[in-house]
């Protein structure tokens, strides 16, 4: 009996198998659903597992750094850089307030991860503030802004930040030409009184401090984007220009008249050597070098109309300009440029800068039919380039050596930058590409007229690009860095450092010191209390006189992951956070008399609501 059933089952199974192999099209029947499923699986990262890459994305005029995980595109964190941030108390506590230097916002466009031998080393991320001429360093061990430097003489370092291959220098060319030294000069004197400045900044990783090494003075063109060379071109920086027309009004029209603008090639090593000789004038304490005085340090190459991005290929042999108003990508050869320079073969001079003929540097033009508004170029590990097309709203994949267009995929909508996995290093990974889009329109649930921006994630590991997901993002995505997760080594708790100034590590050591009208609190925060003065009847109440300068030094002695304490003072418009093991300082003048509750603003524990105290200000 059993045997009979088994035989029958076996027969049925084999029949089904044969039918399936020869007649069915299981794959096709179900194509849509299974493709969607496989796409979903590519972006799904289950609870407890981590993403493969960090996406460190500029937050544009939010002045902040947005951190995402790729491929899930989950937003992990907002790191304040140039703007005041109530959520973290950034710009309230003493250190960040001093770093911000009185500014409340910034316009962060182009992040750059520190590099060693042309590859991301994952230690620091540098950021430019186009609005207020600053550069910032974010320490990727803590994801905290470590230093901000104000750059004089600049008109918005839009074309930064780009690091040389060993982070010797961080280059920041200006967007607007301006008179130097904050001088006044009428727009009629634009040609002679306005300058285009490039800041060359160094960063000391041990001291976590910037140093403005020198500035390069250039013609008053607008510098749009730049990139540092790699390997054979490692000593060079390339920059795109627009407004070589010198328009001082209605730039939309007046800066778009010429068919060619310039690419500028600068040999930073020659300039650094010149600066080292000391034979360079100083302007307001900054060494300012005119590259026309240093032979062989500057050249210009005409390039199609109002180019936007310029990007050096991973092998460092070529640089690719994206045309913006010219619908094509132009591949230039460093070797050809070097040859022309060696032979002294120039087409002329502009502002005393030798101009190399377009044809003498050109390798090829790539002009996909109908592709309009190329802005930026990214790379994979197989010799391909990817360009965002703002106007035709797509990403174009093409081969650098042949110029052959291999794939085109729409994005939603109007991409600015693209970022591929480690795509601007000497060793791109070729796995993912993100398009940072300026317009989202109908992609997501409506929130009224204020639409989010968006980002499209592509899998670029295959012959053609596969669109995986489109996500809303906060304004405003410009450039990003996509770095392999294991290259970033974080600390999740500040190490207990008993020698740290103003730190207190035991409740019993909390104390208040009064000197004249200054009140210094050396206190602790722990689950779930503040102790300002261990000896006081009420250790969490501080009484001061109206007009006193109050300095709270607070150490979070909960050395436990993710137990951050907040410190908000009611009606004083003050709030800061103290992360586990951190000592943070809040300084203010108690100019209002009355009773002001203090409470923990960052949910810390079951008794978080009870974590409070009082600031009592006696009237004068």
């Amino acid at each position, binding site marked *: 009996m059993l045997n009979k059933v088994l035989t029958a089952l076996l027969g049925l199974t084999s029949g089904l198998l044969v039918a399936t192999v020869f007649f069915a099209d299981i794959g096709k029947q179900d194509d849509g659903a299974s493709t969607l499923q496989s796409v979903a699986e590519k972006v799904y990262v289950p609870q407890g597992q981590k993403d493969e890459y960090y996406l460190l994305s500029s937050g544009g005029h939010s002045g902040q750094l947005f951190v995402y995980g790729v491929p899930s595109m989950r937003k992990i964190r907002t790191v304040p850089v140039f703007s005041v941030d109530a959520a973290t108390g950034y710009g309230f506590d003493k250190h960040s307030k001093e770093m911000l230097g009185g500014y409340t916002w910034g316009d962060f466009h182009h992040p750059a991860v520190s590099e060693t031998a042309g590859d991301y080393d994952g230690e620091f991320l540098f950021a430019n503030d186009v609005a207020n001429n600053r550069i910032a360093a974010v320490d990727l061990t803590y994801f905290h802004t470590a230093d901000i430097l104000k750059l004089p003489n600049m008109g918005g370092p839009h074309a930064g930040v780009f690091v040389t291959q060993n982070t010797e220098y961080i280059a920041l060319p200006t967007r607007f030409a301006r008179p130097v030294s904050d001088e006044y000069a009428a727009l009629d004197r634009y040609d002679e009184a306005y300058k285009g400045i490039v800041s060359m900044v160094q960063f000391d990783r041990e001291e976590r401090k910037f140093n403005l090494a020198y500035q390069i003075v250039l013609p008053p063109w607008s510098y749009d984007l730049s990139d540092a060379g790699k390997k054979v071109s490692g000593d060079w920086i390339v920059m795109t220009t627009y407004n070589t027309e010198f328009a001082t009004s209605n730039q939309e029209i007046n800066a778009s008249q010429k068919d060619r603008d310039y690419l500028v090639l600068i040999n930073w090593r020659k300039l650094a050597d010149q600066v080292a000789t000391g034979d360079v004038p100083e302007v307001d304490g900054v060494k300012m070098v005119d590259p026309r005085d240093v032979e062989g340090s500057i050249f210009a190459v005409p390039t199609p109309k109002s180019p936007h991005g310029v990007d050096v290929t991973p092998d460092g042999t070529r640089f690719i300009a994206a045309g913006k108003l010219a619908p094509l990508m132009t591949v230039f050869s460093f070797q050809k440029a070097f040859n022309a320079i060696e032979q002294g073969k120039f087409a002329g001079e502009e502002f005393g800068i030798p101009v190399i003929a377009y044809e003498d540097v050109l390798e090829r033009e790539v002009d996909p039919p109908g592709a309009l508004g190329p802005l930026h170029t990214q790379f994979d590990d197989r010799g391909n380039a990817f360009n965002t097309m703002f106007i035709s709203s797509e990403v174009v994949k093409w081969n650098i050596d042949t110029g052959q267009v291999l794939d085109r995929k729409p994005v939603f909508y109007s991409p600015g930058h693209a970022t591929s996995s480690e795509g601007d290093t000497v060793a791109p990974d070729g796995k993912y590409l993100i398009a940072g889009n300026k317009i989202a329109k109908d992609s997501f649930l409506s929130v009224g007229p204020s639409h989010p921006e968006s980002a499209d994630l592509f899998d670029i590991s295959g012959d053609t690009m596969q669109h995986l997901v489109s996500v809303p993002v906060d304004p405003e995505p410009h450039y990003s860095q996509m770095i392999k997760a294991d290259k970033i080594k974080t600390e999740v708790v500040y190490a207990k450092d008993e020698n740290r100034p103003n730190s207190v590590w035991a409740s019993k050591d909390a104390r208040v010191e009064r000197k004249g009208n200054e009140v210094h609190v050396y206190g602790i925060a722990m*689950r779930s209390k503040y102790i300002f003065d261990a000896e006081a009847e009420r250790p969490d109440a501080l009484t001061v006189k109206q007009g006193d300068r109050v300095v709270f030094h607070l150490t979070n*002695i*909960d050395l436990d992951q993710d137990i951050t304490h907040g410190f908000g003072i009611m009606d004083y418009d003050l709030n800061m956070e103290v992360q586990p093991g951190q000592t943070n300082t809040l300084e203010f003048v108690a100019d209002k008399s009355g009773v002001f509750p203090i409470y923990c603003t960052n949910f810390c524990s*079951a008794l978080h609501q009870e974590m409070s105290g009082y600031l009592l200000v006696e009237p004068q």
Partner: protein
Amino acid sequence: MKRATPKRDLPPISMFSLLLAAALLIGSLFLPWWSMKFYAPQYPEGLNIIVYPTGLAGEIEIVNGLNHYIGMAPFSEASFPEFRVIPYLVIGLALLLVVAAFVRSRKLLGGVLVLFLVGGVVGLLDMARWLRQFGTNLDPTAPIDLEPFVPPILGKNTIANFTTYSMFSWGALLLLAVIGLMAFALWNKQARTGQPRPRPAVAHPAPVKDGQAR
């Protein structure tokens, strides 16, 4: 003149066994003897209290910080005077083992073993006393009111959102091995008979007759 020496009645193998025991005992000073691991939904990775004969390790400050919610007294190395004594006791016992190894006296070794066992029992009772002390003397003003409890020396326990596992660790295993080596030194066959162990006789299997196999 004749010196009074104890009877040398332990074989050389006992000497080696005792020297090894002494080495293991010293080694145990560098290893944890006991530990307690705490798990909670928010601590899937677990928090540890690790007890060495010389001090504490693990996330003591975090555990103390959490314990204050139930009014448990904070503990630290300073709160246990034992840490200042145990290392000397261990070194002393190890020296006694070395002496016993060279003297090779059953009587002396028996004394050391008794001392060792008494020390172990006292140590366990002391631990139990501390656990009872910490678990039952809870501050009545603590925000979370909890029935007094006694964490076990060995095994699982549940307190609020925490599940704890108490266990002996590598050092304690070494202590057990030390006892084993002492017992071996004392009661191996040569030690019992005072004779070197005879070489084992080679057993000759009985010839199997054809047809007898199944």
